[in-house]
Protein backbone atom coordinates (compact mmCIF):
# COMPACT_ATOMS: atom_id res chain seq x y z
CA UNK A 1 0.00 0.00 0.00
CA UNK A 2 1.49 3.30 -1.05
CA UNK A 3 1.63 5.99 1.57
CA UNK A 4 2.10 9.62 0.75
CA UNK A 5 5.19 10.73 2.66
CA UNK A 6 4.38 13.76 4.75
CA UNK A 7 6.38 15.91 7.15
CA UNK A 8 6.18 14.07 10.44
CA UNK A 9 6.33 17.31 12.44
CA UNK A 10 3.32 18.62 10.54
CA UNK A 11 1.51 15.33 11.13
CA UNK A 12 2.39 15.53 14.82
CA UNK A 13 1.19 19.13 15.05
CA UNK A 14 -2.12 18.10 13.46
CA UNK A 15 -2.43 15.25 15.93
CA UNK A 16 -2.33 17.51 18.98
CA UNK A 17 -5.06 16.38 21.37
CA UNK A 18 -7.96 18.82 21.48
CA UNK A 19 -7.59 19.04 25.26
CA UNK A 20 -4.25 20.80 24.72
CA UNK A 21 -5.60 23.48 22.38
CA UNK A 22 -4.84 26.78 24.17
CA UNK A 23 -8.00 28.33 22.80
CA UNK A 24 -10.06 25.75 24.65
CA UNK A 25 -8.11 26.41 27.83
CA UNK A 26 -8.53 30.18 27.94
CA UNK A 27 -10.93 32.15 30.10
CA UNK A 28 -11.93 29.63 32.77
CA UNK A 29 -13.27 31.01 36.07
CA UNK A 30 -10.25 29.50 37.79
CA UNK A 31 -7.91 31.49 35.52
CA UNK A 32 -9.32 34.79 36.80
CA UNK A 33 -9.64 33.61 40.40
CA UNK A 34 -6.01 32.52 40.56
CA UNK A 35 -4.82 35.78 39.03
CA UNK A 36 -6.58 37.92 41.60
CA UNK A 37 -5.34 35.73 44.43
CA UNK A 38 -1.76 35.84 43.22
CA UNK A 39 -1.77 39.62 42.93
CA UNK A 40 -3.73 40.32 46.12
CA UNK A 41 -1.61 37.93 48.19
CA UNK A 42 1.51 39.71 47.14
CA UNK A 43 1.13 42.63 49.48
CA UNK A 44 4.79 43.41 49.13
CA UNK A 45 6.81 44.32 46.08
CA UNK A 46 9.22 41.69 44.87
CA UNK A 47 12.84 42.28 45.69
CA UNK A 48 14.63 43.89 42.77
CA UNK A 49 17.57 42.05 41.36
CA UNK A 50 20.66 42.70 43.37
CA UNK A 51 24.11 41.30 43.72
CA UNK A 52 24.23 38.63 46.39
CA UNK A 53 27.25 39.70 48.32
CA UNK A 54 27.54 36.36 50.04
CA UNK A 55 27.47 34.05 47.13
CA UNK A 56 29.95 33.04 44.51
CA UNK A 57 28.88 34.03 41.00
CA UNK A 58 28.06 30.43 40.07
CA UNK A 59 25.30 30.23 42.63
CA UNK A 60 23.34 33.01 41.00
CA UNK A 61 24.02 31.84 37.46
CA UNK A 62 20.39 31.15 36.66
CA UNK A 63 19.27 34.56 37.81
CA UNK A 64 22.19 36.34 36.23
CA UNK A 65 21.59 34.70 32.86
CA UNK A 66 18.08 36.06 32.83
CA UNK A 67 19.13 39.40 34.20
CA UNK A 68 21.41 39.89 31.22
CA UNK A 69 18.45 39.95 28.83
CA UNK A 70 15.56 42.32 28.49
CA UNK A 71 13.08 42.19 31.33
CA UNK A 72 9.37 42.88 31.18
CA UNK A 73 9.12 44.74 34.44
CA UNK A 74 11.51 47.51 35.34
CA UNK A 75 12.94 46.94 38.81
CA UNK A 76 11.43 49.22 41.41
CA UNK A 77 13.18 50.86 44.30
CA UNK A 78 13.29 48.57 47.31
CA UNK A 79 10.89 49.57 50.06
CA UNK A 80 12.40 47.09 52.48
CA UNK A 81 15.90 46.35 53.66
CA UNK A 82 17.84 44.08 51.34
CA UNK A 83 17.29 40.46 52.32
CA UNK A 84 21.02 39.80 52.43
CA UNK A 85 21.47 42.78 54.74
CA UNK A 86 18.78 41.40 57.07
CA UNK A 87 20.45 38.00 57.18
CA UNK A 88 24.02 39.32 57.48
CA UNK A 89 22.93 41.53 60.36
CA UNK A 90 21.19 38.60 62.04
CA UNK A 91 24.27 36.42 61.63
CA UNK A 92 26.45 39.16 63.11
CA UNK A 93 24.17 39.48 66.15
CA UNK A 94 24.38 35.79 67.05
CA UNK A 95 26.32 35.15 70.22
CA UNK A 96 27.99 32.01 71.52
CA UNK A 97 25.40 30.10 73.52
CA UNK A 98 27.22 30.62 76.79
CA UNK A 99 28.60 28.17 79.37
CA UNK A 100 27.50 24.63 78.75
CA UNK A 101 24.99 22.78 80.89
CA UNK A 102 23.74 19.21 80.76
CA UNK A 103 20.99 19.83 78.21
CA UNK A 104 20.40 22.22 75.36
CA UNK A 105 16.75 23.08 75.57
CA UNK A 106 14.47 24.76 73.04
CA UNK A 107 10.85 25.60 73.74
CA UNK A 108 8.53 26.26 70.83
CA UNK A 109 4.84 26.87 70.22
CA UNK A 110 3.24 25.23 67.18
CA UNK A 111 -0.01 25.97 65.43
CA UNK A 112 -1.36 24.38 62.26
CA UNK A 113 -4.61 24.70 60.32
CA UNK A 114 -6.45 21.73 58.82
CA UNK A 115 -9.48 21.69 56.55
CA UNK A 116 -11.80 18.92 57.80
CA UNK A 117 -15.24 17.41 57.22
CA UNK A 118 -17.78 16.02 59.68
CA UNK A 119 -21.12 14.82 58.39
CA UNK A 120 -22.06 17.19 55.60
CA UNK A 121 -20.21 20.11 57.18
CA UNK A 122 -16.78 21.40 56.35
CA UNK A 123 -14.72 23.65 58.58
CA UNK A 124 -11.17 24.44 59.65
CA UNK A 125 -9.47 23.15 62.78
CA UNK A 126 -6.40 24.55 64.48
CA UNK A 127 -4.03 22.21 66.29
CA UNK A 128 -1.96 24.01 68.92
CA UNK A 129 0.74 22.71 71.21
CA UNK A 130 4.04 23.55 72.83
CA UNK A 131 7.16 21.44 72.60
CA UNK A 132 10.26 21.23 74.75
CA UNK A 133 13.28 19.52 73.28
CA UNK A 134 16.24 18.88 75.55
CA UNK A 135 19.33 17.35 74.03
CA UNK A 136 22.07 16.02 76.25
CA UNK A 137 25.61 17.26 75.79
CA UNK A 138 26.92 13.76 76.49
CA UNK A 139 25.78 10.42 75.05
CA UNK A 140 24.70 9.13 78.48
CA UNK A 141 22.32 12.00 79.24
CA UNK A 142 18.70 11.18 78.44
CA UNK A 143 17.70 13.41 75.56
CA UNK A 144 14.01 13.82 74.93
CA UNK A 145 11.26 15.71 73.11
CA UNK A 146 8.13 16.62 74.99
CA UNK A 147 5.20 17.41 72.73
CA UNK A 148 1.57 18.07 73.41
CA UNK A 149 2.12 20.65 76.15
CA UNK A 150 -0.95 22.89 76.50
CA UNK A 151 -2.23 21.07 73.46
CA UNK A 152 -5.68 21.71 72.07
CA UNK A 153 -7.45 21.10 68.79
CA UNK A 154 -10.30 23.52 68.19
CA UNK A 155 -12.38 25.10 65.43
CA UNK A 156 -10.40 27.94 63.89
CA UNK A 157 -12.93 30.77 63.90
CA UNK A 158 -16.40 31.45 65.25
CA UNK A 159 -17.83 30.39 61.88
CA UNK A 160 -15.86 27.14 62.08
CA UNK A 161 -17.21 26.56 65.57
CA UNK A 162 -20.77 27.11 64.33
CA UNK A 163 -20.19 24.58 61.53
CA UNK A 164 -18.80 22.10 64.05
CA UNK A 165 -21.86 22.61 66.27
CA UNK A 166 -24.16 22.22 63.27
CA UNK A 167 -22.43 18.88 62.60
CA UNK A 168 -23.43 17.78 66.12
CA UNK A 169 -20.19 18.66 67.98
CA UNK A 170 -18.38 15.49 66.82
CA UNK A 171 -15.32 14.41 68.82
CA UNK A 172 -13.31 14.00 65.65
CA UNK A 173 -13.37 15.12 62.04
CA UNK A 174 -12.02 13.76 58.77
CA UNK A 175 -8.98 15.48 57.28
CA UNK A 176 -9.48 16.86 53.78
CA UNK A 177 -6.94 16.86 51.00
CA UNK A 178 -6.75 18.20 47.48
CA UNK A 179 -5.20 14.99 46.20
CA UNK A 180 -7.74 12.29 46.76
CA UNK A 181 -8.88 10.85 50.05
CA UNK A 182 -6.65 11.55 53.01
CA UNK A 183 -6.73 8.78 55.54
CA UNK A 184 -7.15 9.73 59.13
CA UNK A 185 -9.21 11.83 61.42
CA UNK A 186 -8.26 14.46 63.93
CA UNK A 187 -9.69 14.48 67.47
CA UNK A 188 -10.92 17.75 68.93
CA UNK A 189 -10.20 18.94 72.43
CA UNK A 190 -7.23 18.61 74.71
CA UNK A 191 -4.64 15.88 74.71
CA UNK A 192 -1.95 14.87 77.18
CA UNK A 193 1.75 15.62 76.68
CA UNK A 194 3.94 12.88 75.23
CA UNK A 195 7.62 12.16 75.75
CA UNK A 196 9.85 10.68 73.08
CA UNK A 197 13.51 9.75 73.58
CA UNK A 198 15.97 11.37 71.19
CA UNK A 199 19.63 10.87 70.30
CA UNK A 200 22.01 13.09 72.23
CA UNK A 201 23.16 16.44 70.86
CA UNK A 202 25.86 15.08 68.57
CA UNK A 203 24.13 11.73 68.14
CA UNK A 204 22.90 12.52 64.66
CA UNK A 205 25.84 14.55 63.49
CA UNK A 206 28.98 15.92 65.07
CA UNK A 207 27.88 19.41 66.08
CA UNK A 208 31.41 20.64 66.76
CA UNK A 209 32.63 19.37 63.41
CA UNK A 210 29.94 21.04 61.29
CA UNK A 211 31.23 23.20 58.43
CA UNK A 212 31.70 26.87 59.26
CA UNK A 213 31.17 28.18 55.74
CA UNK A 214 28.00 28.30 53.67
CA UNK A 215 29.22 26.16 50.76
CA UNK A 216 30.52 23.49 53.09
CA UNK A 217 27.34 23.55 55.15
CA UNK A 218 25.14 23.33 52.06
CA UNK A 219 27.16 20.33 50.88
CA UNK A 220 26.93 18.74 54.32
CA UNK A 221 23.15 19.21 54.49
CA UNK A 222 22.72 17.93 50.95
CA UNK A 223 24.61 14.76 51.87
CA UNK A 224 22.46 14.38 54.97
CA UNK A 225 19.37 14.71 52.83
CA UNK A 226 20.60 11.94 50.53
CA UNK A 227 21.22 9.73 53.56
CA UNK A 228 17.73 10.39 54.90
CA UNK A 229 15.77 10.42 51.66
CA UNK A 230 17.87 7.89 49.77
CA UNK A 231 18.03 9.92 46.59
CA UNK A 232 16.56 12.92 44.86
CA UNK A 233 17.38 16.58 44.89
CA UNK A 234 17.30 18.48 48.13
CA UNK A 235 14.50 21.04 48.20
CA UNK A 236 15.03 24.63 49.29
CA UNK A 237 12.33 24.26 51.95
CA UNK A 238 14.15 21.30 53.48
CA UNK A 239 17.48 23.15 53.45
CA UNK A 240 15.94 26.21 55.04
CA UNK A 241 14.31 24.17 57.82
CA UNK A 242 17.61 22.42 58.63
CA UNK A 243 19.45 25.74 58.53
CA UNK A 244 16.87 27.24 60.88
CA UNK A 245 17.32 24.30 63.26
CA UNK A 246 21.05 24.89 63.33
CA UNK A 247 20.60 28.58 64.11
CA UNK A 248 18.80 27.59 67.31
CA UNK A 249 21.32 24.84 68.13
CA UNK A 250 24.42 25.13 70.30
CA UNK A 251 26.80 24.96 67.37
CA UNK A 252 29.68 27.34 66.65
CA UNK A 253 28.62 30.90 65.89
CA UNK A 254 30.29 30.60 62.48
CA UNK A 255 28.17 27.55 61.63
CA UNK A 256 25.00 29.39 62.62
CA UNK A 257 26.07 32.38 60.52
CA UNK A 258 26.76 29.97 57.64
CA UNK A 259 23.23 28.63 58.14
CA UNK A 260 21.89 32.14 57.55
CA UNK A 261 24.00 32.30 54.40
CA UNK A 262 22.44 29.04 53.23
CA UNK A 263 19.02 30.65 53.68
CA UNK A 264 20.16 33.79 51.86
CA UNK A 265 21.34 31.59 48.98
CA UNK A 266 17.86 30.16 48.45
CA UNK A 267 16.48 31.25 45.07
CA UNK A 268 13.59 33.68 45.45
CA UNK A 269 14.15 34.61 49.10
CA UNK A 270 13.11 38.20 49.71
CA UNK A 271 12.65 40.78 52.43
CA UNK A 272 9.18 41.69 53.77
CA UNK A 273 10.20 44.46 56.17
CA UNK A 274 9.06 44.53 59.78
CA UNK A 275 6.40 42.03 60.85
CA UNK A 276 5.09 40.76 64.17
CA UNK A 277 5.35 37.09 65.06
CA UNK A 278 2.37 35.12 66.52
CA UNK A 279 3.30 36.44 69.99
CA UNK A 280 3.34 40.02 68.74
CA UNK A 281 7.13 40.36 68.87
CA UNK A 282 8.44 42.52 66.05
CA UNK A 283 11.24 41.41 63.79
CA UNK A 284 12.59 41.56 60.27
CA UNK A 285 10.62 39.22 58.06
CA UNK A 286 11.88 37.37 55.03
CA UNK A 287 9.83 35.25 52.64
CA UNK A 288 10.94 31.98 51.12
CA UNK A 289 9.67 30.52 47.85
CA UNK A 290 6.15 29.12 47.81
CA UNK A 291 5.44 25.43 47.95
CA UNK A 292 2.34 23.33 47.42
CA UNK A 293 0.64 21.70 50.36
CA UNK A 294 -1.84 18.88 49.73
CA UNK A 295 -4.28 20.07 52.36
CA UNK A 296 -3.96 23.82 52.01
CA UNK A 297 -2.84 24.94 48.55
CA UNK A 298 0.04 27.22 47.68
CA UNK A 299 1.79 28.49 50.80
CA UNK A 300 4.68 30.86 51.45
CA UNK A 301 7.05 30.30 54.34
CA UNK A 302 8.16 33.40 56.23
CA UNK A 303 10.86 33.78 58.86
CA UNK A 304 10.72 36.57 61.41
CA UNK A 305 14.13 37.40 62.80
CA UNK A 306 14.87 39.27 66.00
CA UNK A 307 17.14 42.18 65.00
CA UNK A 308 18.50 42.28 68.56
CA UNK A 309 19.68 38.67 68.98
CA UNK A 310 19.75 37.47 65.37
CA UNK A 311 17.54 34.53 66.36
CA UNK A 312 14.56 33.41 64.30
CA UNK A 313 11.56 34.32 66.47
CA UNK A 314 9.12 32.42 64.32
CA UNK A 315 8.58 30.58 61.10
CA UNK A 316 5.12 30.83 59.65
CA UNK A 317 3.30 29.76 56.52
CA UNK A 318 0.93 32.11 54.77
CA UNK A 319 -1.66 30.96 52.25
CA UNK A 320 -0.98 32.42 48.80
CA UNK A 321 -3.49 30.50 46.68
CA UNK A 322 -5.95 28.36 48.67
CA UNK A 323 -6.43 24.84 47.33
CA UNK A 324 -9.93 23.40 46.85
CA UNK A 325 -10.11 22.00 50.39
CA UNK A 326 -8.86 25.21 52.01
CA UNK A 327 -11.21 27.35 49.93
CA UNK A 328 -14.15 25.08 50.88
CA UNK A 329 -13.65 25.92 54.57
CA UNK A 330 -13.27 29.64 53.97
CA UNK A 331 -9.50 29.93 54.17
CA UNK A 332 -8.26 32.82 52.06
CA UNK A 333 -5.05 34.23 50.66
CA UNK A 334 -3.08 35.98 53.40
CA UNK A 335 -4.24 33.65 56.22
CA UNK A 336 -1.46 32.34 58.46
CA UNK A 337 -2.01 28.60 58.34
CA UNK A 338 1.01 27.30 60.26
CA UNK A 339 3.50 28.69 62.68
CA UNK A 340 6.34 27.65 64.89
CA UNK A 341 7.27 30.25 67.48
CA UNK A 342 10.44 30.21 69.55
CA UNK A 343 9.64 30.63 73.23
CA UNK A 344 13.09 30.14 74.67
CA UNK A 345 16.41 28.36 74.31
CA UNK A 346 19.57 27.80 76.29
CA UNK A 347 21.55 25.42 78.47
CA UNK A 348 19.93 23.83 81.49
CA UNK A 349 21.06 21.25 84.00
CA UNK A 350 17.76 19.51 84.55
CA UNK A 351 14.68 18.32 82.75
CA UNK A 352 11.46 19.28 84.45
CA UNK A 353 8.91 16.69 85.45
CA UNK A 354 5.96 16.44 83.06
CA UNK A 355 2.94 15.14 85.00
CA UNK A 356 0.60 12.88 83.07
CA UNK A 357 2.90 12.50 80.11
CA UNK A 358 2.69 9.47 77.85
CA UNK A 359 5.94 7.67 77.01
CA UNK A 360 9.24 6.83 78.72
CA UNK A 361 10.61 9.15 81.41
Amino acid at each position, binding site marked *: *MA*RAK*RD*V*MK*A*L*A*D*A*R*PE*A*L*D*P*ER*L*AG*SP*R*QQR*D*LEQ*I*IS*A*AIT*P*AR*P*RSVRRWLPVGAVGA*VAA*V*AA*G*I*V*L*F*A*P*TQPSFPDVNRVLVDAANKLVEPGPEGTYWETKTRHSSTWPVAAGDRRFALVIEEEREVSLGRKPESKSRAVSGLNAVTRPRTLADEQAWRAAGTPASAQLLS*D*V*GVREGAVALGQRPPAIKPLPWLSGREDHAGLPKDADGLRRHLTERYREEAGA*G*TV*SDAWLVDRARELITSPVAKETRAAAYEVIAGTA*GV*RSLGERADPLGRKGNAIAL*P*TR*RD*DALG*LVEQQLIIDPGTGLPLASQEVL*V*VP*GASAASVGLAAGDIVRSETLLGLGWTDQQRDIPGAIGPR
Partner: protein
Amino acid sequence: MAEADQFRELYNACYPRVLAYASGHVGRQLGEDVVSETFAVAWRRRHEIPVPPLPWLLGVARNLLRTSRRTEIRQYELAAATARHEQFGEDTGGIVTERAAVLAALRTLPESEQELLTLVAWHGLTPKEAAKVLGCSTATFAVRLHRARRRLEKAVADTQDAAVGGRS
Protein backbone atom coordinates in the same frame (compact mmCIF):
# COMPACT_ATOMS: atom_id res chain seq x y z
CA MET B 1 -1.02 49.42 40.02
CA ALA B 2 0.74 49.64 36.68
CA GLU B 3 2.77 46.55 37.53
CA ALA B 4 -0.32 44.55 38.39
CA ASP B 5 -1.98 45.61 35.13
CA GLN B 6 1.09 44.63 33.18
CA PHE B 7 1.16 41.31 34.97
CA ARG B 8 -2.55 40.74 34.20
CA GLU B 9 -1.80 41.24 30.52
CA LEU B 10 1.10 38.77 30.63
CA TYR B 11 -1.00 36.30 32.63
CA ASN B 12 -3.98 36.34 30.32
CA ALA B 13 -1.80 36.13 27.23
CA CYS B 14 0.29 33.19 28.45
CA TYR B 15 -2.07 31.30 30.77
CA PRO B 16 -3.67 29.05 28.12
CA ARG B 17 -0.33 28.02 26.67
CA VAL B 18 1.27 27.33 30.04
CA LEU B 19 -1.85 25.33 30.98
CA ALA B 20 -1.65 23.39 27.70
CA TYR B 21 1.96 22.52 28.50
CA ALA B 22 1.25 21.46 32.11
CA SER B 23 -1.93 19.57 31.13
CA GLY B 24 0.11 17.68 28.55
CA HIS B 25 2.13 16.25 31.44
CA VAL B 26 -0.34 15.76 34.26
CA GLY B 27 -3.83 16.47 32.93
CA ARG B 28 -6.03 19.49 33.40
CA GLN B 29 -6.76 19.29 37.11
CA LEU B 30 -3.23 19.05 38.48
CA GLY B 31 -2.12 21.15 35.49
CA GLU B 32 -4.18 24.08 36.79
CA ASP B 33 -2.45 23.81 40.16
CA VAL B 34 0.95 23.82 38.49
CA VAL B 35 0.02 26.86 36.40
CA SER B 36 -1.23 28.69 39.46
CA GLU B 37 2.08 27.99 41.16
CA THR B 38 4.00 29.00 38.03
CA PHE B 39 2.38 32.42 37.92
CA ALA B 40 2.79 32.91 41.67
CA VAL B 41 6.51 32.40 41.07
CA ALA B 42 6.34 34.71 38.05
CA TRP B 43 4.68 37.47 40.06
CA ARG B 44 7.29 37.21 42.76
CA ARG B 45 10.11 37.20 40.22
CA ARG B 46 8.47 39.59 37.78
CA HIS B 47 11.59 41.70 37.50
CA GLU B 48 13.44 38.73 36.05
CA ILE B 49 10.94 37.73 33.36
CA PRO B 50 12.59 38.02 29.96
CA VAL B 51 11.05 38.85 26.60
CA PRO B 52 9.48 36.69 25.22
CA PRO B 53 8.12 35.44 28.54
CA LEU B 54 6.63 32.10 27.42
CA PRO B 55 9.82 29.97 27.38
CA TRP B 56 10.72 31.31 30.83
CA LEU B 57 7.24 30.49 32.16
CA LEU B 58 7.33 27.00 30.66
CA GLY B 59 10.77 26.53 32.24
CA VAL B 60 9.32 27.42 35.65
CA ALA B 61 6.36 25.08 35.07
CA ARG B 62 8.74 22.33 33.99
CA ASN B 63 10.76 22.69 37.19
CA LEU B 64 7.60 22.59 39.29
CA LEU B 65 6.45 19.46 37.46
CA ARG B 66 9.81 17.84 38.09
CA THR B 67 9.70 18.77 41.77
CA SER B 68 6.16 17.48 42.01
CA ARG B 69 7.26 14.26 40.37
CA ARG B 70 10.03 13.82 42.93
CA THR B 71 8.08 14.72 46.02
CA GLU B 72 4.60 13.47 45.25
CA ILE B 73 5.39 10.43 43.18
CA ARG B 74 2.09 8.61 43.48
CA GLN B 75 -0.04 11.64 42.80
CA TYR B 76 2.13 12.66 39.88
CA GLU B 77 2.17 9.23 38.28
CA LEU B 78 -1.57 8.92 38.60
CA ALA B 79 -2.11 12.33 37.03
CA ALA B 80 0.41 11.61 34.28
CA ALA B 81 -1.26 8.28 33.50
CA THR B 82 -4.65 10.00 33.35
CA ALA B 83 -3.21 12.66 31.06
CA ARG B 84 -1.76 10.00 28.75
CA HIS B 85 -5.08 8.22 28.69
CA GLU B 86 -6.92 11.46 27.86
CA GLN B 87 -4.51 12.32 25.11
CA PHE B 88 -3.67 9.02 23.55
CA GLY B 89 -6.74 6.94 24.22
CA GLU B 90 -6.70 3.53 25.80
CA ASP B 91 -6.14 1.20 22.90
CA THR B 92 -4.20 1.84 19.74
CA GLY B 93 -4.84 -1.58 18.20
CA GLY B 94 -6.23 -1.51 14.68
CA ILE B 95 -4.87 1.91 13.89
CA VAL B 96 -6.14 3.33 10.68
CA THR B 97 -5.83 7.08 10.83
CA GLU B 98 -2.57 8.96 10.49
CA ARG B 99 -3.41 10.92 13.62
CA ALA B 100 -3.72 7.78 15.72
CA ALA B 101 -0.55 6.38 14.17
CA VAL B 102 1.44 9.50 15.03
CA LEU B 103 0.17 9.54 18.61
CA ALA B 104 0.87 5.84 19.04
CA ALA B 105 4.34 6.32 17.59
CA LEU B 106 5.02 9.29 19.87
CA ARG B 107 4.15 7.17 22.86
CA THR B 108 6.86 4.65 21.96
CA LEU B 109 9.61 7.29 22.25
CA PRO B 110 11.45 8.12 25.49
CA GLU B 111 9.77 10.89 27.50
CA SER B 112 12.64 13.28 26.87
CA GLU B 113 12.14 12.96 23.12
CA GLN B 114 8.38 13.28 23.42
CA GLU B 115 8.98 16.56 25.24
CA LEU B 116 11.32 17.92 22.56
CA LEU B 117 8.89 17.11 19.79
CA THR B 118 5.76 18.38 21.49
CA LEU B 119 7.37 21.65 22.60
CA VAL B 120 7.77 22.44 18.93
CA ALA B 121 4.80 20.69 17.31
CA TRP B 122 2.11 21.20 19.96
CA HIS B 123 3.20 24.22 21.90
CA GLY B 124 4.46 26.19 18.91
CA LEU B 125 7.91 27.06 20.24
CA THR B 126 10.84 27.81 17.97
CA PRO B 127 13.92 25.63 18.58
CA LYS B 128 15.56 28.62 20.29
CA GLU B 129 12.60 29.06 22.65
CA ALA B 130 12.30 25.34 23.33
CA ALA B 131 16.02 25.19 24.14
CA LYS B 132 15.44 27.88 26.78
CA VAL B 133 12.66 25.83 28.37
CA LEU B 134 14.95 22.81 28.62
CA GLY B 135 17.95 24.87 29.66
CA CYS B 136 20.22 23.75 26.84
CA SER B 137 21.84 25.53 23.90
CA THR B 138 19.95 26.00 20.66
CA ALA B 139 22.57 23.90 18.85
CA THR B 140 22.19 21.01 21.28
CA PHE B 141 18.44 21.25 20.98
CA ALA B 142 18.62 21.17 17.17
CA VAL B 143 20.70 18.00 17.25
CA ARG B 144 18.39 16.31 19.73
CA LEU B 145 15.30 17.41 17.82
CA HIS B 146 16.72 16.04 14.58
CA ARG B 147 17.37 12.69 16.24
CA ALA B 148 13.94 12.58 17.89
CA ARG B 149 12.25 13.48 14.66
CA ARG B 150 13.94 10.64 12.80
CA ARG B 151 12.95 8.21 15.50
CA LEU B 152 9.39 9.45 15.31
CA GLU B 153 9.35 8.98 11.52
CA LYS B 154 10.58 5.44 11.94
CA ALA B 155 8.10 4.72 14.74
CA VAL B 156 5.21 6.06 12.62
CA ALA B 157 6.23 3.80 9.73
CA ASP B 158 6.53 0.81 12.09
CA THR B 159 3.16 1.52 13.67
CA GLN B 160 1.46 1.85 10.30
CA ASP B 161 3.13 -1.32 9.01
CA ALA B 162 2.03 -3.19 12.12
CA ALA B 163 -1.52 -1.91 11.69
CA VAL B 164 -1.62 -2.82 8.01
CA GLY B 165 -0.02 -6.19 8.69
CA GLY B 166 -2.41 -6.84 11.53
CA ARG B 167 -5.41 -6.29 9.30
CA SER B 168 -4.33 -8.37 6.32
